[in-house]
């Protein structure tokens, strides 16, 4: 040990300069920094070393903040632990070896999974800069949840009016290869060089021939609930989800198609003038190569039937927010008329906030958009029916640009606000006023009393949830999820678009509930990150990989059999195993398994870890 220094902000410019100066002046060949987690600033201090002429791998960080001072109550004990951590780092760094950074070319193509507003926005940003995008959407059309919405808060723009031009642009863009009705099946490779297998599901309609006349949909005799209309309307077995679908090519839903169920019908085939119906079509597997990936897989909606006392699916005229969006939409099943199941116009409507969110029985988190769309509903209801509106809220959270002003505006439109959580929605009535109506029972916490309000319709502001298959998706793309089930960002504040897997980014509600402006901002941010990678043209790859000593290798092949990346193969000429450096990610499992100790896991060598163990046990 040549020199020890103490400085308050080692990661700052002057702090780094202290290290750089000492490296140069004292010809240091190893550096230990005892500070915050290496996850935070290891790259910073590596750059400091490199600038001062020292190989960046000759530094070691002792994490005495996140894993010591911040978590230990007893100061004396914390100091003892910090000393042990520092001692271990000093012992370890002795065995560090200089390593050379390797760079490989970066594939400028991008895969975007999910064709909602996040995916569309990111795709357009990247495609407009001249780079190829593969946009994969699971359903028959892009548009996502946003295309189902009626108006958007707080400006009351029509959602479809602002989204459909973007959808068309994405569908026609020369640099965007749109794969709708397709799903990613397999992902391999790493940043700069991903290989992706995509299953393009059989539509049973030839997209090159179909002219979008929709005659097939008119004639099809089989009907089922429309997913796009949130079950409020019907669609045929051959269908496009909505008239402005992109691409405007129908699909045949084999679960409801008479031909697939009973073997006869083929009416669509008979009426199609373009000869586009193809019952023999098969799923196609497409393989693409990209340098980066954006996950924009969106959210799912909480099923309020779990909360039995709210009566969803048991009582008529209890609807979810998404169902109400379709009900109030002029292109929806009622032509935009807000009507009850019997066709009459409601005289009063209750809007229940936080259904499934901010509720420890379901989801702790706030869904962030419900307060605002509930205000929007109040306005639309007043405008279209003049009915009484009661908002049952916990707190009004109107945090965005123009949101508080919108709240003020709607408050002045004669909307009732009741601060309290609804305990029950019931059809058990106790007087003539309530008879034949729904009664909303709640505690008004501002009055400290239980109140019963008879209404004709109840709208449940259901929580946004992670997609049903979020867990499988996280595994497929090798990223983590946070405790609430949404995809985990690399850093909650400073890196909310990257993930722990290099080259994979997240945008929109798959990362956490958010509104349209935030979703669009995150999508653009993800695109910007990818464009900066593309413009660099090359990417640094893992340095801390395995290498096999041919003198020691006995050729047993244990390493090769357990390598998760098939990165180890037998060299027939030299008769020993060798590591493919482009494939190895440096997990070290072969190092631990080699019976001859012939494999070195660079930067996590046995010597280094043994020294660390000794150092910790002073």
């Amino acid at each position, binding site marked *: 040990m040549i020199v020890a220094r103490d400085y308050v902000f080692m990661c700052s410019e002057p702090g780094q300069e202290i290290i750089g100066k000492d490296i140069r002046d004292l010809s240091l060949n190893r550096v230990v920094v005892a500070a915050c987690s290496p996850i935070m600033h290891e790259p910073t201090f590596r750059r400091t070393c490199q600038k001062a002429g020292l190989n960046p791998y000759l530094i070691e960080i002792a994490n005495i903040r996140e894993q010591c001072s911040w*978590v230990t109550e007893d100061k004396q004990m914390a100091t003892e632990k910090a000393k042990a951590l520092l001692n271990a780092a000093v012992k370890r760094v002795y065995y560090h070896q200089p390593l050379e950074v390797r760079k490989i070319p970066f594939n400028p193509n991008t895969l975007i999974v999910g064709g909602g507003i996040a995916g569309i926005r990111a795709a357009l940003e990247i495609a407009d800069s001249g780079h190829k995008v593969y946009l994969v959407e699971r359903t028959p059309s892009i548009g996502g949840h946003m295309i189902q919405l009626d108006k958007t808060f707080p400006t009351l723009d029509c959602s479809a009016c602002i989204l459909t031009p973007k959808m068309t642009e994405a569908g026609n863009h020369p640099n965007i290869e749109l794969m709708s009705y397709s799903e990613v099946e397999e992902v391999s490779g790493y940043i700069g060089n991903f290989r992706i297998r995509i299953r393009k599901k059989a539509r049973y309609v030839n997209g090159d021939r179909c002219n979008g006349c929709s005659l097939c949909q008119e004639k099809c005799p089989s009907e089922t609930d429309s997913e796009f209309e949130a079950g409020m309307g019907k669609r045929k077995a051959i269908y496009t989800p909505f008239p402005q679908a992109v691409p405007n090519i129908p699909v045949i839903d084999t679960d409801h198609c008479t031909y697939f169920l009973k073997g006869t019908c083929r009416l669509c085939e008979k009426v199609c003038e373009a000869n586009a119906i193809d019952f023999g079509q098969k799923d196609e597997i497409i393989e693409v190569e990209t340098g980066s990936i954006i996950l924009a897989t969106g959210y799912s909606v909480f099923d309020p039937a779990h909360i039995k006392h709210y009566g969803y699916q048991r009582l008529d005229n209890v609807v979810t927010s998404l169902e109400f969006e379709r009900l109030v939409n002029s292109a929806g099943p009622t032509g935009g008329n807000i009507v009850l199941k019997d066709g009459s116009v409601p005289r009063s409507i209750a809007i229940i906030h936080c259904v499934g969110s901010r509720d420890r029985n379901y989801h702790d988190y706030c869904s962030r958009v419900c307060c605002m769309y509930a205000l929007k509903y109040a306005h639309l209801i007043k405008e279209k029916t003049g009915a009484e509106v009661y908002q049952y809220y916990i707190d009004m959270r109107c945090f965005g640009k123009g949101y508080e002003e919108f709240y003020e505006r709607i408050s002045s439109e004669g909307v009732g606000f009741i601060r309290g959580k609804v305990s029950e929605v019931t059809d058990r009535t106790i007087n003539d006023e309530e008879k034949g109506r729904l009664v909303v029972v709640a505690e008004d916490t501002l009055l400290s009393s239980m109140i019963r309000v008879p209404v004709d319709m109840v709208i449940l502001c259901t929580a946004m949830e992670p997609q049903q298959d979020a867990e499988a998706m996280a595994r497929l793309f090798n990223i983590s999820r946070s405790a609430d089930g949404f995809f985990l960002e690399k850093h909650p504040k400073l890196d909310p678009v990257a993930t722990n897997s290099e080259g994979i980014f997240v945008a929109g509600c798959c990362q956490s509930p958010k509104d349209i402006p935030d979703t669009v901002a995150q999508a653009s941010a993800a695109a910007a990150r990818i464009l900066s990678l593309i413009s660099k043209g090359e990417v640094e790859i893992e340095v801390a990989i395995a290498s096999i000593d041919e003198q020691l290798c006995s050729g047993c092949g244990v390493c090769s059999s357990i390598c998760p990346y098939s990165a180890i193969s037998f060299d027939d000429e030299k008769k020993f195993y060798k590591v493919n450096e482009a494939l190895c990610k440096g997990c070290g499992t072969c190092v631990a398994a080699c019976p001859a100790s012939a494999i070195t896991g660079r930067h996590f060598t046995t010597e280094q870890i043994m020294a660390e163990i000794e150092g910790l046990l002073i």
Partner: protein
Amino acid sequence: MSFEPVIIVFMCNWCSYRSADLAGTSRMKYTPNVRPIRVKCSGRVEPTFIVKALQAGADGVLVLGCHPGDCHYTDGNYKATRRMALLARMLEQLGIERERVSLDWVSASEGNRFVSIVNDMTARIRKLGPLAKKS
């Protein structure tokens, strides 16, 4: 003075080490008895590391990896499971209690789980007493 064990914790770079960092940034408190070592994957932890730690004075060793199915390197945590099972048998033959070595899973977002695993392990080893005295 009551016995305070020293426990070496091997943590993978992707899940468990980050859960420990999260416990820190969330200012959760846990026993200072644990000494962390970061590896890239729980699959890198050789049984000899654990034996070495016990020989060099640790009273217990904890290996923390990603949850099954969540391994950053596909299945390194399963390999850790197999190695730990074999090691536990060997330790018993050496007269070292199985409980001194433990394998568990923590995801990057489970700071609170990390804290409870560490506290539980410390309490368990405290009960067992020092390793050196027995051997």
